[in-house]
């Protein structure tokens, strides 16, 4: 008989498709994975400990760097937590700016995901098309707040910079352009036989597993559970806008792919409405105290970031620094299901499944 051995393969921490410094120890028998153990913590920077010595305005740049692909939602969650604790009123124009910026960020994040996912699957060109569109969004952000990736844009009580002249018009043009582009991308990729064969039926799980593992965002909705924090526990001014929450059926990678592209479409809908209703003038900063001291107590707020439920648990002792600031990071929680999904899969499917979970290592490790 031929003697076969189980091979222990180390995927990462430096690897082209692990989306960051992430290590996966897989035991394979031929091409089939028998066990997969994720090892994280390579990007742990101690944000939560650092936050205990910083006041709230100083914490905001740190949140940019946690989920660096979706920095605006990181900014927002901290501001929202403090504002809920303080009971602050945010002016209209600031709310609109926040919403527009967060939805643009959602589109940019999903575009990046789409490009890199297809690159992992093997198609080289969509990556460049996705980045071309993302460039438009990053240029918009650049005009607005001076940075392309780590914005430090929101403050407790509002936003820091006002939209320059003509910025809203550019957002409107972008929305129009993106709608046709999205259809183009569906034509190019979504019907491709090879692509469908690669991801259809791969990495499927059901709703109970998803709920038990605490998955959120697209990873939860692909199983059929209609839970989107923008609709179910609305924050900012999302309850004023009309949009759908797409839900999948089978819980496999194809559903997650389609859902993310649908979410881009829904974001474009929200942006269209927001741009129409944008207040002509107004304050961008509410009546926040000069030294921000939330009252003693604790608050937990959660928002829908492109990756899922991003939460912030703030425990304050009435000082300008938080006593304990905990971030509930969606990528960290979503990654837990990976070992379960990978058992019995082939190495080629590993990349497809890992990509569909959509993790950002900065967020996994905080």
């Amino acid at each position, binding site marked *: 008989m031929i003697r076969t051995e189980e091979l222990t393969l180390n995927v990462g921490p430096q690897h082209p498709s692990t989306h960051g410094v992430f290590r996966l120890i897989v035991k394979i028998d031929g091409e089939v994975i028998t066990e997969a153990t994720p090892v*994280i*913590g390579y990007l*742990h920077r*101690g944000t*939560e*400990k650092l936050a*205990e*010595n910083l*006041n709230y305005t100083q914490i905001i740049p740190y949140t940019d760097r946690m989920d660096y692909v979706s920095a605006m939602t990181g900014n927002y969650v901290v501001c929202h937590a403090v504002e*809920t*604790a303080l009971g602050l009123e945010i002016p209209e124009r600031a709310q609109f700016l926040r919403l527009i910026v967060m939805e643009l960020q959602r589109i940019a994040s999903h575009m990046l995901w789409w490009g890199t996912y297809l690159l992992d699957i093997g198609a080289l060109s969509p990556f460049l098309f996705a980045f071309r569109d993302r460039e438009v969004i990053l240029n918009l952000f650049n005009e607005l707040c001076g940075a392309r990736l780590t914005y430090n844009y929101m403050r407790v009580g509002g936003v820091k910079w006002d939209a320059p002249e003509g910025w809203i018009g550019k957002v409107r043009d972008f929305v129009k352009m993106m709608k046709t582009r999205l259809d183009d991308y569906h034509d190019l990729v979504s019907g491709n036989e090879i692509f469908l064969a690669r991801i259809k039926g791969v990495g499927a799980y059901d709703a109970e*597993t998803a*709920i*038990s*593992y*605490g*998955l959120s965002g697209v990873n939860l909705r692909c199983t059929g*559970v209609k*839970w989107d924090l923008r609709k*179910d*526990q609305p924050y900012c001014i999302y309850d004023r806008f009309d949009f759908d929450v797409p839900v999948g059926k089978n819980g496999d990678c194809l559903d997650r792919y389609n859902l993310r592209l649908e979410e881009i479409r829904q974001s474009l809908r929200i942006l269209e409405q927001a741009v129409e209703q944008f207040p002509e003038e107004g304050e961008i900063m509410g009546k926040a105290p000069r*030294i921000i*001291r939330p*009252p*003693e*107590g*604790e*608050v*937990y707020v*959660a928002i829908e970031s492109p990756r899922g*439920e991003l*939460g912030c*648990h703030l*425990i304050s*002792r*009435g*000082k*300008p*620094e938080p006593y*304990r600031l*905990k971030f*509930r990071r969606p990528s*960290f*929680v979503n*990654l*837990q299901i990976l070992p379960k999904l990978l058992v019995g899969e082939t190495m080629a499917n590993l990349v497809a499944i890992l990509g569909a979970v959509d993790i950002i290592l900065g967020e996994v*490790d905080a």
Partner: protein
Amino acid sequence: MSEENKNHAGVPGSEPEQKANAPENAGEPLAKESIAGEAGKGPAETGAAAPERAQAIAGNDEAALAARRKAAEEARAARAAAAKAAAADGAAAGGGEAPPAPPKEPSPNQPKLDRLVRIITEKFGPSAVVESYINELDRHLPCVVVDPSVWADVAALLRDHEELKLEYLRNMTGVDQETHMEVAYFMLNLAEKQDYCVKVKTDRDNPEIPSVVSVWQTANWNEREIYDLLGIRFTGHPDLRRIMLPDDWVGHPLRKDYVPLDPEV
């Protein structure tokens, strides 16, 4: 240095300060020079805040540790007393610890809280629920504090009971309150969209809490992270080892008395 601390321990509304450590904290902004939240209560302090950490850097011994903890307890008690006194005087207090003089309206979530307490105490007895309150600051979130010895079973009850069905564990936070350690669990009923918060307290010297991985799978890595950063052991966890830090790290960084091996870090 510990002498100084003991002297200042009894001052109401203040925290022990470290004048000796002022040069280390020279760079910190003026905003930090305030005292704990209650404006205009005790004597205004100058000097550095975050005394515990500053003391940690200075490298204290056991006695100072105990002294500090005692000081913190006394400070909290003093703060609460001062808050009550201030509230009685009509000045606004810092938080929802003491009710104002006229009786408050019951919170809209009070019935939900009562139901939760009832369900737990029905099965596990009145000692299972140590405390229960509504967190008004957080949009009237019903909170209960559960006794750690029955926590694993209470968790299973919360998930399976027809009236509660708290299947979705949103968040777990480990906190080092200086007198004790606690873990806060935030659960959600997806159909009713109702959140609940359950806290489990344990003591600081040998913190142990039963693991709820068998109830909610999402607790797995969360508990590992809390173990890693705070040192709370979760009994019954299938694989309790460090997750963020390297396996050979000494200490638990998120604790308030954490002394890094390398003070430059």
